[in-house]
């Protein structure tokens, strides 16, 4: 009798644990591998919030195919070794159906080979380095990205300078310390020349520089020109804008998505200096599109802040994944195939399809700043 009781008891315990497990094994686990601390936490944190917001939305609607979505979030602290460790854990221990992240290129590059090895999708919202989705000359079948890549921005900006600003003569300034700046400068230069314009000079500086007055004085001696292209992040672009205006260079200044920063006006020595400044980006809250306005309102309600381009990219990233899971179920390889066949996905950062290299084909937005405020946004198609 006692034995029987024991058996019942143990069976009961076993049953209880099994049923206890049931809800978790019934959720769809998605891994998140982001820079939540460290020097680029400003990229990772808004993306994490956008993921959480999207999961909250989809779960309120009953999940995907009746299953709730659960995020498994790890911080890689912008450390490639940590990112690799996280990816291994997500793929082998947590057994997620797909991984999201990283926000920047360096950790994304480190995760790529693992995604291929474990055959689990790695989908980065904002890793823009060309090689992120590549494996040598070939495509890495398991890595996708939602952001357009740098060469595309260089092209879009050159076309905008030629057509939107009717510029004939341009001067380029850029940091020699980052591939971002060097790639953008060379692609802009090629495209601008192909459009019939001429690039008077390309001046490089190094990252710690804060004083650009010598170069700005030197380019004034080149004669009249119509547009100054600054291939850099706001950190230095802001200083260049301010110093250029102080030196009397009043022509339009254009640049890549790196211009987008709450510090740009401050760095430029006041909002008044940030006039006739244009930059290309992924997303703008200025659009009157209902999809975008609904997203902005929901983001404000969920986080208390207006979404940035990073929030928007992360939001599109996870919704494309949701769509793929809805189509393919929870098998990681089938999800990959479904994602690869995404065409005409209507997201907040444009209408997205993937090319043969798992890079998105989508539109860019050129934002116009007057007196430090974004006043106008133009959609530019590839």
């Amino acid at each position, binding site marked *: 009798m006692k034995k029987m009781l024991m058996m019942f008891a143990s069976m009961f315990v076993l049953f209880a644990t099994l049923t206890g497990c049931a809800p978790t094994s019934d959720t769809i686990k998605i891994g998140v591998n982001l820079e939540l601390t460290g020097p680029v936490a400003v990229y990772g944190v808004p993306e994490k919030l956008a993921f959480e917001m999207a999961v909250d939305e989809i779960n309120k609607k009953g999940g995907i195919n009746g299953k709730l979505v659960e995020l498994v979030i790890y911080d890689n602290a912008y450390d490639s070794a940590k990112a690799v460790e996280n990816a291994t854990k997500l793929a082998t221990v947590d057994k997620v159906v797909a991984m999201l992240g990283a926000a920047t290129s360096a950790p994304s590059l480190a995760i790529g080979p693992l995604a291929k090895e474990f055959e689990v999708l790695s989908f980065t919202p904002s890793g823009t380095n060309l090689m992120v989705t590549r494996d040598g000359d070939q495509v890495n079948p398991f890595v996708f990205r939602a952001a357009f890549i740098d060469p595309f921005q260089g092209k879009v900006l050159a076309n905008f300078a030629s057509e939107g600003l009717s510029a004939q003569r341009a001067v380029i300034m850029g940091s020699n310390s980052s591939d971002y700046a060097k790639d953008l400068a060379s692609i802009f230069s090629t495209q601008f020349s192909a459009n019939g314009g001429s690039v008077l000079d390309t001046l*490089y500086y*190094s990252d*710690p520089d804060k*004083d650009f007055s010598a170069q700005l004085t030197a380019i*004034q001696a080149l004669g009249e020109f119509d547009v100054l292209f600054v291939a850099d992040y706001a*950190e230095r672009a802001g200083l260049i804008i301010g110093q250029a205006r102080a030196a009397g260079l009043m022509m339009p200044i254009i640049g890549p998505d790196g211009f987008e920063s709450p510090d740009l006006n401050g*760095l430029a020595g006041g909002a008044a200096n940030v006039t006739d400044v244009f930059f290309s980006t992924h997303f703008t809250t200025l659009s009157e599109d209902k999809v975008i306005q609904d997203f902005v309102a929901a983001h404000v309600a969920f986080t208390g802040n207006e979404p940035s381009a990073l929030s928007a990219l992360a939001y599109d990233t996870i919704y494309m994944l949701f769509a793929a899971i809805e189509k393919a179920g929870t098998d990681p390889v089938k999800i990959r195939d479904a994602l690869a066949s995404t065409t005409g996905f209507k997201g907040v950062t444009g209408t997205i399809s993937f090319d043969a290299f798992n890079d998105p084909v989508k539109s860019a937005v050129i934002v116009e700043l007057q007196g430090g405020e974004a006043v106008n946004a133009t959609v530019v198609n590839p």
Partner: protein
Amino acid sequence: MTQFLQQIINGLSIGSVYALVALGYTMVYGIIKLINFAHGEIFMVGAYLAMIFITVFNFPLWAAMLGSMAGSALLGIVIEKVAYKPLRKSSRTAALITAIGVSFLLQNAMLLIMGARIYTFPQVFQNTSWIFFGLRINTLQIMMFLTSIALMISLQFIVLKTKVGRAMRAVAVDKEAAALMGVDVNHTISMTFALGSALAGAAGVMVGLYYISMTPYMGFAPGLKAFVAAVFGGIGIIPGAMFGGFAIGIIETLVAGYGSTLFKDAVVYAILIIVLLVKPSGLFGKGGKEKV
């Protein structure tokens, strides 16, 4: 020609920054023969302090400047008491290495407290620019230039004409003898550090105003350049530091304007090497004699 003169103006304004930092450097060296590598970091702390005074406590600019100078002076005294005083009898190399350590300590402490993000210095100063004969110059450039000259003159006055200055010179020549004559050596060295650090704090505020962007590493490069400027003018000689600062600023700007910015640092450090090889006592140095 206009371009050349404009480049000279650009050079003088960046040179004023180097001169401001170099003055404190050279004074501390003149008195206690210590190359205080943490000087650039005190300059950085000064800029952050002023920013905090303005943005958090709503101080007007002059009050923020005084507050930042006082804070930097205090920091200088503490550093001297904690890090340099115990090593006063050790070799100069030990003190030098400690100075480098203090420099990293301050950098990383600031990184810990304020984070790696860039802060922008509040634009509390209405900077207007004028055009004379096609040359552009703005209020801040003039202010930095005049401040560096004014500080050079007042430092020279303090060291040569006041009682504290006489004590400093006495300590510089011979610590023991000065002590025997009734000079309070510890007090004098503290005063030297306080004065030098207050200068660094003032320079930090000026640079914050002029270059706007601030990071915990902002003191490092100007600190090194100011060191080169001090050596160029003759380390330990106060007018030398100022002229060295202007000279380095102008050379750097001309290299950037007519060559490439990528070479400008190389040229500056090449100058350091040449000066050390050819005339180690610097442009204003007399060589051999004790300098103050």
